[in-house]
């Protein structure tokens, strides 16, 4: 039996056992590649049980700090019915044929995997019961489990999972759709707080991350790219670099034109990273002229102002008749908002280790999204995708930056070129200057109110980046942002200008900025309507109902938002009397299927802002899998948002990024981090992800609190010295 691969042609499930997989027994409930059954493609994970009862659960999704390496295995362990303390977790290799989607992005892992991974666990439990019932000659229905054991109540017999796993692995798994899952009330693991599975290694400095990878014969590399994105090398004298002790090679990389692929540059490969870095610093690279060399933030701002005055290029959505409604309004409110480009600034600079040998490519990558990386590497190195193996290592931060695999193809290319394993490591300057930035944009709002202060019209002229109908990456807008469908007359107009800088998703892409502008302007409208900001939002949300079509990502449930708004108002003591110079601000926003409301209490004294406390309420469905982990994600998202709102902006001059590190693109520090009190509102909806949705409401909650404290309305980020 060991090592055999069994296929059940009717259910197309693959069951693997064996020594080949590490000595333990493997129950692998994966779908075979071409024979995938429609509708249950998410059913794919590994459970291994050793004869001594040790359970190994493979975690399929990359770990970037979102805690998925703990929470998803908890889901399997729950339905498998084992002691969490008996479980060790292994990070999966990148293999969509076995694991399906392996992406740390869009806060989608919980949403997409929760049900399927419960069934993976339940399938294992059913097999173990089948093995026990066969051995005892009793009906499976008369057997039950308790953590790690199958029991036959009538005879009082019990067998440990470790004693059954060998037999169980040889049995045909039941159709996962037929399995009965646990009643959530009986959960022992899900809903309890469990610590990070890598906690011991993290706190004692054991190797875990991309830059910790060591491969025999490995060389270290640096790669210098043009400050103007995509410019070619015009000329360079490589001899000073080659003269540095330890340097093995220095060479020009021709590269391509796609900003997310292998770009032109100069590589240095050495026997230590410091030698490669020192050598790189000796280079005087002349970069070729490039069409985007004149672009600048000042130029973008001037163009945006022109576009704002001109008729919009197109309309994304128009409900009712906004122009007529504004004409008939008792009061019209207008305001313009802006936000800058920002960088991800993962603390672990981009890096990747690659070994290209005999037409095979082996990669150790801190990536959130390995499959596009595999395709990019295969295309660039001219090898078949099957020749590329990608090991997933713990990422020192994701935030969306590692959805793009530019550093992966660079490492693979350099290894192919020098014929040895290579670890490419960027400097902090490389990281800030060659990010895929959260794009900046401008919003010009007009709202109409009736005599009772009710919202009758909402218009936003969104000025962003792109060409024609095409937005630059992550520079678009979904036209169904609330109050869409809650107000009769609603219009989103768009104008765009071209951009020659790399952009991409950053934590709660789009929404991280829409939350700021929409929820700040909503405060202005509430003020114009002479209403309390929470009361105005309650009225606007109205009766609990679904706006849009059920099951669509852009549908919005007013009752769920009302639930978190009411909860955060209660917990923060909304409406209480505050000393002069102190204020409370509120905001609520829906994104990534999560509803989050935030209140902040701030004071401003002599221009110095202090955030005293933050309250957050989130509705992400019926089940919080790992409560302490969930709390961390909400706290981290909100502090991340405070960090960008206070300090961060990327600007361009002469086609290049001006900022280069933490001095000019600061991160929040200890002394400025307020306490964040987190509350969850449980609702009867499927559990959804938490890596992102708490970010979008935070910037507006902060700016609305500043207004409440000072009367100063922040309409452009970062706040910087605007309070001085």
């Amino acid at each position, binding site marked *: 039996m060991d090592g055999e691969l069994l296929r059940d042609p009717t259910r197309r499930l693959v069951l693997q056992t064996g020594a080949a997989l590490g000595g333990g027994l493997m129950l692998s409930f994966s779908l075979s590649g071409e024979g995938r059954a429609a509708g249950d493609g998410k059913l794919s994970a590994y459970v291994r049980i050793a004869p001594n009862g040790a359970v190994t659960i493979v975690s399929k999704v990359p770990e970037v700090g979102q805690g998925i390496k703990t929470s998803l295995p908890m889901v399997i362990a729950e339905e498998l019915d084992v002691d969490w303390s008996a479980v060790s977790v292994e990070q999966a290799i990148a293999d969509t044929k076995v694991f399906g989607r392996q992406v740390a992005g869009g806060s989608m892992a919980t949403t997409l995997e929760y049900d399927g991974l419960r069934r993976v666990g339940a399938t294992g439990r059913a097999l173990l019961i089948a093995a026990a019932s066969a051995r005892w000659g009793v009906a499976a229905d008369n057997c039950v489990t308790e953590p790690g054991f199958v029991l036959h109540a009538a005879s009082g017999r019990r067998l440990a999972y470790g004693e059954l796993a060998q037999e169980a692995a040889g049995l045909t798994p039941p159709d996962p759709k037929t399995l009965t899952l646990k009643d959530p009330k009986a959960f022992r693991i899900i809903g309890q707080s469990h610590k990070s599975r890598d906690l011991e290694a*993290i706190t004692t400095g054991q190797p875990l*991350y991309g830059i910790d990878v060591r491969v025999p014969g490995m060389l270290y590399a640096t790669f210098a790219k043009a400050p103007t994105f995509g410019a070619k090398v015009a000329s360079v004298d490589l001899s000073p670099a080659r003269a540095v002790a330890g340097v093995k090679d220095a060479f020009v990389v021709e590269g391509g034109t796609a900003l997310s692929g292998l770009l032109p540059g100069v590589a240095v490969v050495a026997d230590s990273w410091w030698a490669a870095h020192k050598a790189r610093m000796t280079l005087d690279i002349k970069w070729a002229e490039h069409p985007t060399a004149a672009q600048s933030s000042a130029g973008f701002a001037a163009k945006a102002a022109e576009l704002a005055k001109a008729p919009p290029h197109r309309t994304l959505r128009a409900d009712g008749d906004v122009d007529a409604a504004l004409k008939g309004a008792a009061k019209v409110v207008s305001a313009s908002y802006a936000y800058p480009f920002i960088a991800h600034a993962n603390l672990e600079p981009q890096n990747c280790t690659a070994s290209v040998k005999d037409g095979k490519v082996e990669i150790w990558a801190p990536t959130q999204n390995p499959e596009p990386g595999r395709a990019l590497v295969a295309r660039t190195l001219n090898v078949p995708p099957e020749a590329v193996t990608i090991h997933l290592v713990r990422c020192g931060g994701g935030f969306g930056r590692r959805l793009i695999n530019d550093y992966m193809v660079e490492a693979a290319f350099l290894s192919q070129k020098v014929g040895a394993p290579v670890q490419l490591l960027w400097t902090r300057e490389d990281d800030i200057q060659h990010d895929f930035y959260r794009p900046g944009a401008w919003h010009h709002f007009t709202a109409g109110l009736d005599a009772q202060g009710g919202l009758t019209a909402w218009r936003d002229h969104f000025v962003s980046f792109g060409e024609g109908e095409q937005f630059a990456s992550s520079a678009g807008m979904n036209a169904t942002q609330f109050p869409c469908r809650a107000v009769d007359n609603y219009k989103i107009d768009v104008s765009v200008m071209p951009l020659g800088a790399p952009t991409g998703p950053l934590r709660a892409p789009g929404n991280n900025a829409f939350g700021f502008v929409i929820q700040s302007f909503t405060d202005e409208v509430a003020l114009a309507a002479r209403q309390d900001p929470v009361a105005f939002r309650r009225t606007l949300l109205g009766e609990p109902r679904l706006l849009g079509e059920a099951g669509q990502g852009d549908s919005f449930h007013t009752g769920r938002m009302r639930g978190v708004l009411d909860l955060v108002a209660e917990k923060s003591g909304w409406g209480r009397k505050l000393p002069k110079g102190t204020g409370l601000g509120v905001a609520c926003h829906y994104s990534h299927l999560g509803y989050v409301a935030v209140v902040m209490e701030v004071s401003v004294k002599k221009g110095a802002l202090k955030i005293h406390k933050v309250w957050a309420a989130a509705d992400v469905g019926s089940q919080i899998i790992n409560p302490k982990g969930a709390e961390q994600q909400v706290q981290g998202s909100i502090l991340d948002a405070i960090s960008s709102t206070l300090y961060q902006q990327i600007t361009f001059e002469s086609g290049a990024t001006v900022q280069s590190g933490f001095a000019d693109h600061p*991160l929040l520090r200890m002394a400025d981090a307020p306490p964040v009190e987190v509350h969850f509102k449980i609702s009867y909806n499927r559990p959804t992800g938490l890596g992102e949705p708490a970010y979008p409401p935070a910037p507006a909650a902060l700016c609305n609190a500043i207004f409440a404290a000072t009367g100063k309305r922040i309409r452009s980020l970062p706040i910087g010295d605007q309070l001085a």
Partner: protein
Amino acid sequence: MAFTLTINGETRSADVAGDTPLLWVLREALGLVGTKFGCGAAQCGACTVHLDGVPVRACITPVQRVGTKAVTTIEGVGQTAVGARVQEAWKAIDVPQCGYCQAGQIMSASALLTAKPKPTDADIDAAMNGNLCRCATYIRIRAAIKAASGQEA
């Protein structure tokens, strides 16, 4: 050239250029990868180690300046009573998210608690402000330092 260093109580030697920052000597020449690279400019604190118990940024400390000072890294800080207590508190409170900065945080916190066994919030702010956490685990870092010093959060 060859440098002889005392690291976590052991004598180690490394044949590297004298201007090589201690960070890279630890990570590449000596295989101690727990100390992390974040910026190379002493702006983030990810590379914090102790020289004779004093926290320094290894990314800007050339190996030729270390001399006979005892180097303590995240791999060895648990050998001290304070370091072990800090690591235990970090685990009890489950501080990390991505975890990349935490070696540096633990080194700074251990140095703080060695100098001030019962730090105030202001002491914590001052001692920890040089250590960035991109995931912003600051709330739990503060709680862990309080716990390790036997104070209520």
